């Protein structure tokens, strides 16, 4: 009988966790308090920042949604020459992963033109959220 209860608990836990993730994954978050003042530059990323904004995407080989996120971001920055998309292999850049306390892939951080972290998206991002966050950073920059 114990095994039946363990199996039932496993089913409940998976459904609850799966639904929670489906609801919250990829939601845009403002910079958290520990991100305050954190900035990234070309010297850390090995690539020039965009002149108005930069999406920095942390990916890994064992991560299927990273491919989708990569395609999505490539598409988002395609028509915006002032916005850059930099993809970082989390495995080879554990230093950055530790510094930003990144726990899973994909994680996307949105930098403003000064390289300051403005938004964080953990999990597979959605296009409307990305565009919304980008718009916010861009309008802010223009002001």
């Amino acid at each position: 009988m114990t095994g039946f209860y363990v199996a039932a608990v496993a089913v409940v836990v998976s459904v609850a966790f799966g639904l929670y993730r489906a609801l919250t994954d990829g939601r845009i978050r403002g910079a958290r308090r520990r991100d305050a003042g954190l900035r990234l530059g070309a010297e850390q990323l090995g690539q020039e920042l965009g002149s108005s904004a930069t999406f920095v995407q942390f990916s890994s080989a064992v991560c299927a949604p990273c491919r989708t996120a990569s395609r999505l971001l490539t598409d988002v920055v395609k028509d915006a020459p002032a916005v850059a998309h930099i993809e970082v292999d989390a495995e080879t850049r554990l230093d950055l992963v530790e510094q930003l306390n990144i726990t899973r892939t994909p994680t996307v951080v949105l930098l403003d033109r000064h390289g300051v972290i403005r938004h964080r998206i953990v999990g597979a991002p959605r296009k409307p959220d990305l565009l919304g966050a980008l718009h916010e950073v861009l309008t802010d920059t223009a002001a």
Partner: protein
Amino acid sequence: MSSPQPTSVPKPIDPRGPRFGAAITSVVLAVILILGPGLGALILLIIQTIAFGLGSVVGLAAQPYGLVYFRLVRPRLSPPSELEDPRPPRFAQTVGLIFALAGLIGLVAQLPVLFYIAVGFALVAALLNSVFNYCLGCELYLLGRRALGRPLARIVPANQS
């Protein structure tokens, strides 16, 4: 740095294969739990461990449930809309293998608590995978790397069939 993939990217696979396999795995693990410690659970768990082991160590092409999908199910379906990198599902097989081995140790050493916890976690992972197409590697790999602070990459070799 715009592309994180190593130079040798393994051949992409039909993503429905691993999900189909995870569904079978879920049923097998649930039956193992319900049977409880005993000969029946031992035999099923050995079979499941071998399945995980083949998928993890040899590659997804050798995973028995994947073979069932490829031989019997896929011919009846339309071609996949998108192909997927085999490394994420292979990592999931490795995680499953670790849980299954822990469960086996629990059975053999007569530690029922270990058996129930290990198989229970394996069932959660398999259900998340099959029902929600959940990416286990996305969550565990980086945490594991950060915790261990050394390369786990050799568990998931870059080149495979």
